[in-house]
Structures are given as C-alpha cells and as structure tokens.
C-alpha cells in the first residue's frame, strides 16, 4: 500500500505536452503521406498523358506516305466529311469506349509563322479526362523548283484563314501562283508555286490532273504573248520556261507539261511535318497539368 501511495504518475501538464507532441507528429506524418499519395497520382496521370502523346505521334505518322500533302491539318472544317483530325481521334479511341469528344478545330491565325492550327478533343483514360491537342505544319522539298504549298506550311504566312496563304482560290480547289522565292526583283529566282488549297483535294489535284491543268492554263491564258512572258520570267532554264515552251505549241502542249510537273511533284517531292502534341488534365485537387511532345514526321519517296 505504501508502494502504491508513492506512485505519483504524470502531471496534467506533462500529459498535455506529450499528447500535443504526439498529435503534431502524427499530423505531420499524415500530411507527408497525403502529399506522397497526391504526387503518386499526378505521376501516374503524367505517365498516361505521355503515353497518349506518344501514341498520337505514332498514329499521325501513319498517314499517307507518298502523296506530298499535309495530312494532319483539317482545313476542310466546314465539311461534313471527317478530316484527318477526326480520323486521329477515332484511332485514339477505336472502340469509342473512352468517351472521346469531337474534334474542336481552331481558326487559323493569319500572318504568323509558322501557321499552326491547334485542334483538340477530350478523352478518358483510367477515370481521368485528358485534353489532347496538336498543332502541325508541313515543309516541302523542292523538285525542279517546284514545291507543294499548302495552307499550313511552316515557312509561309497565311493570308486567308480559310484557304491559306499566297494566291488563293476557293478552299478545296487548286490554283497556281507565280511567286518570288527570295529576291522579288530577280526574275531568275522566281519559282512556280503549286498553290494547293485543299488538303483533301490534293490527291485529286495530283492524280487526276484535269483540274490542275485547267487552273494552270487558265492562269497563263492563251491571249498573252507567251514568248515574252517566258523570257521575262525564267529564261532558258527552269520549269516555267519549259512549261511555256510547251504551251507555245498549243493547249495540248500545256497539258503535257503540266502533266509532267504534276507527276514529278507527286513522285518526287517529299514533305516533313512538324507535329507538337499537348496533353492536359486536371488532377483530383483541381490543379491543371500538361505535357508536350513534338516530332518530325518525314514523308517521301526515297
């Protein structure tokens, strides 16, 4: 009994201090665990986003191989026909079981280089909604001073938000522009600019040559002095002088020359498409995140 009486125990102050220290340490540990869990969650989402971007780039590289055209931009936004962006979206969600939304094309920006048209849609992966957007522009090789010029070329400003830069006609059609390349005052630097105004129509422009024939021949006309035009533009060498040389022989000659150009452009001009993919998402705490990947997709006939 005396022994028990000697046991004085802890004071209230001691107990309170100890309990406070314990609570503080427990709360610190829980906060650490919570932060670790959040970081792990965001890291998993980032992994999925990177996988989505990589898959997007890979599928984009699966576009048309030999026809030199920009396969990634959806210029024909007003058309009911699904464009390249729609096809990409469908490829990323082939079974439509991840609740992807429609492609939202943006208006091309006039006067900026390069002319990129961001397009986006949303899709679900592992209970997270990802916004996939991409921008693309294409650079063309030169073949006998001819290059493919589409509405979304990397090195050319757009002057028309609908149908692209340079000499334009109706979107979806074909046109021919004669533009100075680097020195406007020197006729020898003039190049023939095959102004292809419709992504989806380029195939028909280059394979079914009649529309291109018509566009070129209408541009040159038959009433002008062809010899003087030839001399002032290119001299003895170059594509346009050869073309005009054939044209002197009549309309049939023009078509033959244009046919050669069209065939050469189709079979000889390679393109490189610069592609930038951005995948964004919002984590469970509402914070936005995004990752980006870019790639150069080469298409050619080498």
């Amino acid at each position: 009994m005396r022994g028990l009486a000697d046991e004085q125990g802890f004071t209230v102050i001691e107990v309170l201090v100890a309990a406070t220290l314990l609570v503080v340490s427990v709360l610190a540990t829980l906060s650490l665990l919570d932060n670790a869990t959040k970081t792990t969650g965001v890291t998993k989402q980032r992994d999925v986003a990177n996988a989505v971007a990589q898959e997007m780039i890979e599928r984009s590289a699966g576009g048309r191989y030999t026809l030199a055209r920009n396969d990634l931009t959806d210029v024909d936004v007003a058309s009911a026909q699904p464009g390249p962006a729609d096809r990409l979206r469908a490829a990323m969600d082939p079974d439509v079981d991840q609740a992807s939304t429609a492609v939202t094309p943006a208006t091309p920006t006039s006067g900026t280089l390069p002319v990129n048209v961001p397009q986006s849609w949303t899709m679900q992966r592992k209970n997270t909604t990802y916004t996939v957007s991409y921008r693309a522009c294409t650079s063309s090789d030169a073949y006998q001073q001819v290059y493919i010029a589409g509405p979304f070329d990397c090195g050319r400003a757009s002057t028309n938000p609908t149908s692209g830069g340079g000499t334009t006609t109706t979107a979806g059609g074909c046109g021919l522009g004669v533009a100075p390349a680097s020195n406007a005052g020197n006729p020898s630097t003039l190049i023939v600019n095959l102004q292809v105004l419709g992504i989806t129509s380029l195939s028909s422009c280059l394979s079914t040559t009649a529309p291109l024939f018509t566009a070129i021949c209408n541009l040159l006309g038959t009433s002008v002095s062809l010899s003087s035009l030839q001399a002032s533009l290119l001299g003895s060498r170059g594509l346009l002088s050869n073309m005009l040389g054939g044209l002197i022989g009549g309309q049939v000659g023009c078509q033959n020359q244009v046919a050669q150009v069209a065939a050469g452009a189709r079979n000889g001009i390679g393109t490189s498409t610069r592609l930038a993919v951005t995948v964004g998402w919002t984590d469970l705490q509402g914070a936005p995140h995004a990752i980006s990947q870019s790639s150069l997709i080469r298409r050619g006939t080498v």
Partner: protein
Amino acid sequence: MSVRRVAADERGFTLIEMLVTMTLGVMVLFAILGAFEVFSTSAAVTDKATAAQDAARANVRNLVVIMRQGRVATGQTTPIPAGTPTRSDLVVAAYVSSATGPSPGAVMGWVRYCAETTGSQSSLIVGVRAGDAYLAPGTCSAGDTTNGWSHAVVLDGTLQNPTRLFDYTTSACTGAACPLPSGPEVQSVGIRLAVATKPGADETFNSVVRDAVSFRNRSSS
C-alpha cells in the same frame, strides 16, 4: 542479512498481472500475424499483377519492334500480307531468329500475333515462320505447325478482350466501326493488350498496355 531482506522484498508479478499481460501479448501477436497475412497476400497479388503487366509490356514492345522492322516480302506490297487482318489476328513480314540462318535475328520470315480463346480464358499466341514466301498459318494454337509455322503461348489465360487486340488505320476509315481493311491498306496498327487475373482466381488485377505502330516502308499507293 541485507541480501535476504532485499530478496524478501521482491514480490514479483501477481497472477492477474501475468494473465492480463499475456492476454494483451497474444492479442498483439495475432494482430501482427493478421497484418503480416494481409501484407503477404497483397504482395503476392502485386507480384502477379506486376509480372502480368511486365509480360504485357514486353510483348507489346516486342510486337512494336517487329512491326517497326517490318519488311515487304516478295510478292507483297506492304509488311502485312494480302488478305484481311482481324482484330485478334495479325501477321507481319519481319526478320526472325533462326539457328540455321546467317545470323540470329536476320532471317527473312513472318511473325503472327493472335488470340486463342478456350472457354472463358484467352491466351496470346505468337507464331513464327522463317522464309520470304508467305504461306498462310493454320489455327491460332500452341503447337500448330501448318505450313511451317511454329506457335507458342506468351500470355497464358490472362488476356482480356481478345477481339480488341488490334485496330487499323487506313486512309479511308479509322475506328472499330470501319470494315476490316485488307492488309495492304493498313497504314498504322493500334495495339491494346489487356491482362487480368484468370477467371475464378482469388486475387484480382487488371492492366491495359497500349501502343501504335506506323508502317513507314509502305510502297507507293
């Protein structure tokens, strides 16, 4: 005397104290054993899930490498032979390993990835055939040797959604709603390899590995 008195003061624990202490000790011991059991089960499930996911990733990676190195065989126009690939069966012309070839992995041949479903379980099968000429393989089954093909199981019973293993991109159409293209029309192949526990297993896990491959050596079209 003093030693005897000290010994007499050592009264030890009472029976009640011992019983209470032992009961508490046993409870703590059982709690620890229970937690250990939970951790062990969780670790086993995690190991199986990780192994299955690793196997899925390895197979997808292998398939991607094979298709990236896909060749155009004699008489063909693309790495995928003429005919209609399905969403669970794909044949690609590639370079395969052969002990009789000039060097391992450098022999012209064909590789097939397909799904075999038996009852409620599906397995991923890989078929290989050396030789440039395309000879159609037989059934998608381990041990099938039709036309010189050899088949082996690489994912045994853990394959999910075998009819959604592949999807194909063409110029004309993309997505599951499109009709299956012929081989030469395929421009890129999407891979969706889903793995999960076998039906009836105590533990559960599932994982999906995706990838896509574009054929960059398609002939002019």
